[in-house]
């Protein structure tokens, strides 16, 4: 599904990713953990195509196709979804209209007709119920005045609507209470299939109790320095990152 080879990326000439390798197959869930400032969110942004970051070396391929030169919307059309750590507030655009536009622009890019209105409504109803989202919430301005939990739930709602091949969840657990965490994780698990893959970026092992990873990677100073199974996450929770640093020395 996603192959990252020797990826180097920098922002304003400051190198952040320094030779990162990652291989993700369809049907897998990968967790990326690491201390603050190790490059976790940068990795998410670079895969999604944020233009502030410059890829100076290496390649990112999605289903065999190099996507590193594509615009963010083109990557989205190919099935890349990023659940933002800090979803942006867009006053004046309702949740419903935003997701309608996103779906129809994606269909347009694929040469498909717009989704019929009744089909769209049905889909919105189905997915919002799955994430226990109040109907009133859908006619509010996107993310404006939303609580942290509402913002994250709304991200997963959009993910459910767009059905991406590769979903990257950047600190989706931050700002969530335990009930919201369960609802969000439940949503992600329902969307998981043998045809898609999920990357979970998190500080804490907590989320991984609900979204169980096949692999756990430790990102430090722009590189993946250790990979393992879900047990690695427990170890990190218990011992922190210093022992890995020592191991590396």
């Amino acid at each position: 599904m996603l192959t990252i080879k020797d990826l180097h990326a920098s922002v304003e000439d400051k190198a952040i990713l320094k030779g990162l390798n990652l291989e993700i197959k369809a049907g897998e869930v990968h967790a990326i953990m690491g201390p603050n400032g190790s490059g976790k969110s940068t990795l998410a942004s670079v895969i999604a195509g944020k233009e502030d970051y410059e890829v100076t070396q290496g390649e990112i391929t999605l289903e065999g196709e190099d996507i590193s030169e594509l615009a963010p919307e083109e990557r989205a059309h190919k099935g890349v979804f990023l659940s933002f750590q800090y979803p942006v507030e867009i006053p004046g655009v309702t949740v419903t209209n935003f997701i309608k536009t996103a779906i129809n622009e994606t269909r347009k890019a694929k040469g498909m007709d717009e989704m019929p209105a009744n089909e769209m409504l049905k889909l919105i109803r189905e997915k919002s119920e799955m994430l226990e989202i109040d109907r009133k919430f859908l006619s509010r301005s996107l993310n404006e005045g939303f609580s942290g939990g509402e913002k994250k739930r709304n991200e997963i709602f959009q993910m459910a609507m767009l059905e991406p091949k590769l979903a990257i969840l950047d600190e989706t657990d931050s700002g969530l209470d335990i009930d919201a965490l369960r609802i969000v994780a439940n949503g992600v698990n329902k969307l998981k299939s043998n045809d898609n893959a999920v990357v979970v970026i998190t500080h804490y092992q907590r989320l991984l109790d609900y979204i169980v990873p096949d692999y756990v990677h430790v990102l430090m100073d722009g590189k993946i320095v250790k990979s393992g199974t879900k047990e690695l996450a427990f170890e990190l929770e218990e011992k922190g990152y210093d022992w890995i640093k020592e191991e590396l020395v």
Partner: protein
Amino acid sequence: MALKEKLISSFMAFEERVNADEELHEIRTSAIKIFEGKGFPTKKDEAWKYTSLNSLLKHNFSVFPKSEVSIGIADVKRFFIDETDTYKVVFVNGVFNSFLSSTTHDGIDVCLLSSAISKPKYREIVDKYFNKIAVKDETLTSLNTAFASEGAFINIPKNKVADKPIEIVYFSTKNEDNLWLNPRNLIVVGENAQVQIVERHQSLGSDLVLTNSVTEIFVEKNAVLDYYKIQNDELEANLIDNTYISQQQGSNASVHTFSFGGNLTRNNLNFYHFGEHIESTLKGVTIIEDKQHVDHYTLVHHAQPNCESHQDYKGIFGGNATGVFNGKIYVDKIAQKTNAFQQNNNILMSEKATINAKPQLEIFADDVKCSHGCTIGQLDESALFYMRQRGIPQKEARALLMYAFTNDVISSIKISSLQQRIMKLIAKKLGVDLGFNL
């Protein structure tokens, strides 16, 4: 001959052409004298600091159209908000066009100022209202008054509600000389009466034209007026719009101004309060590029207690475009419990675009709520990335953000066909096809 002298000598010729009504003759003569004394405003005038008429006034203009033109409905129907479901007062090069118009005297009067002036039936209204709220020592208003002979006359008598919106449309066409038009509208909304009006100035060619328009509106006790100005003219067209609104107790008046086109546009929009519990709303959306210039110069004069005014102007400026917002709120000493709000938000799309924003609050009462807010910024890059990440292409994402930015103003349009029209104009302006309502 310089333009000023030419206009003054044209006045003599003009006076011979129109019916020499003694009182009007006096009004016109004293008006031309004011213009003669003051001349055109220059950048030295505080009110014209950011808008220069200099290069425009170097051209030769004539107040007398020379060509007779025939226009068919097919040529112009796209400029009406509705082909059948509105009253229309239509002018071509300043001359009334009965073929394109749809006037009425059934319960309400929607007709011509010239016919109202000449008919004894309307004498009382004309005497009571004509040139009563327009500021007499303002030089361009005086120039209009001197040549005032034609325009829309709308009279909504007491307790009447106009059954459909009224469109006032001024077309201009190719003419031997560059046209200087002086349209003059008189609108009276009687006690408890209600009306919705849409005004548009539209050039049908690419010739230089300058319209110096004056509209006087009287909103009587408890009356409701909703007024919309569509300024989406050709790039050689220039407009100086002087609108004066007098409001009586308990009345509610709103003016929405949509400025998308034209070369130079100056809106002098003035509200005067003559009673308590009045509500005034001034809203605008400006989207311009190239070398276009739009100047909103607003005044709300709170002269009585317990009144409210709301101003909300949004501007998006690209290319080398320049915008001006000068919002003056004047609160007299006796106007206690005034609520006056002013909001002006601007987005600069290019490094060469300019906005000059100047809130001007002069408050002499001590128990009032007055606020103003002004922002100048660029489109939010993080919002653009967010939208693109969800598959919305850059152009559409930008358009969506701009739509959202103007939404507060667009959503308060009360005529749905007009609202649709404005949304389409904005979409066209932004080069996108987004099929939804925000």
